[in-house]
């Protein structure tokens, strides 16, 4: 079984934010919630680097480890998802996540948090695939349609890759061999450990 992973090639990312736009549009993500963000290091300085960040669907997900209501589960292909009917919006997962992935919509006055929302790898949630309820709660289920996450499919420079970890690693290895330098698989060690 394939192990789904994200990889952002910092040498290729041009900070166009099309991944962010594609994600927000595909899943109708509400205002104030960003499932994906582009972070630029040393912005404005020659040699600046940009990386597209979202939930990395960690092998040993810290969000799941700290969840007091155990609303997280991992699919057979390594996608970390959660049940919004169980989530109490406590925010523990936000503090545990090394990528700042969990987001909370403001649903009432005085900053009361709603149910946690995060990148689903376009795999929806624990509801009937591609039903209206699933779409409203989790966004579109592209995986059930046989498609990959839209952020990666839309990436114009193919900086953001999503799919089977082995296939991504092959592509990235070829790139590094071609252009030289050292591989910088940003976030992979935090998300997938050394063994993956």
């Amino acid at each position, binding site marked *: 079984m394939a192990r789904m992973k994200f990889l952002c090639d910092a040498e290729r990312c041009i900070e166009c934010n099309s991944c962010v736009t594609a994600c927000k549009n595909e899943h109708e993500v509400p205002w104030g919630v960003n499932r994906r963000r582009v972070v630029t290091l040393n912005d404005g300085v020659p040699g600046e680097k940009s990386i597209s960040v979202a939930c990395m669907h960690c092998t040993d997900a810290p969000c799941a480890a700290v969840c007091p209501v155990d609303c997280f589960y991992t699919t057979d292909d390594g996608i970390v998802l959660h049940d919004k009917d169980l989530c109490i919006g406590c925010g523990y997962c936000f503090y545990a996540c090394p990528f700042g992935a969990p987001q909370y919509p403001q649903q009432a006055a005085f900053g009361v948090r709603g149910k946690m929302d995060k990148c689903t790898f376009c795999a929806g949630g624990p509801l009937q*695939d591609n039903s209206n309820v699933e779409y409203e709660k989790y966004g579109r289920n592209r995986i059930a349609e046989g498609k990959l996450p839209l952020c990666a*499919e839309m990436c114009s420079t193919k900086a953001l890759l999503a799919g089977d970890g082995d296939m991504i690693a092959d592509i990235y290895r070829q790139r590094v061999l071609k252009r030289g330098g050292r591989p910088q698989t940003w976030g992979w060690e935090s998300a997938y450990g050394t063994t993956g």
Partner: protein
Amino acid sequence: MTRLLSLFTGVSLAFIVSGCYESPSVTSYEPGVYKGAKDPLMQANKDQRAETMKKRFEMVQTDR
């Protein structure tokens, strides 16, 4: 009148006290185990999905 009042008090007390009992059924809680609904995606054919994903990856994710 006094008998009626004491009877009423007795019945009321019995009714109130009937709410004070300990349920023998205990809700067991396994920490760290997913408690939510089952995902239909997990019941789908894994191998078929993996093959579809591979084809899709080769179509849209390879270098230009």
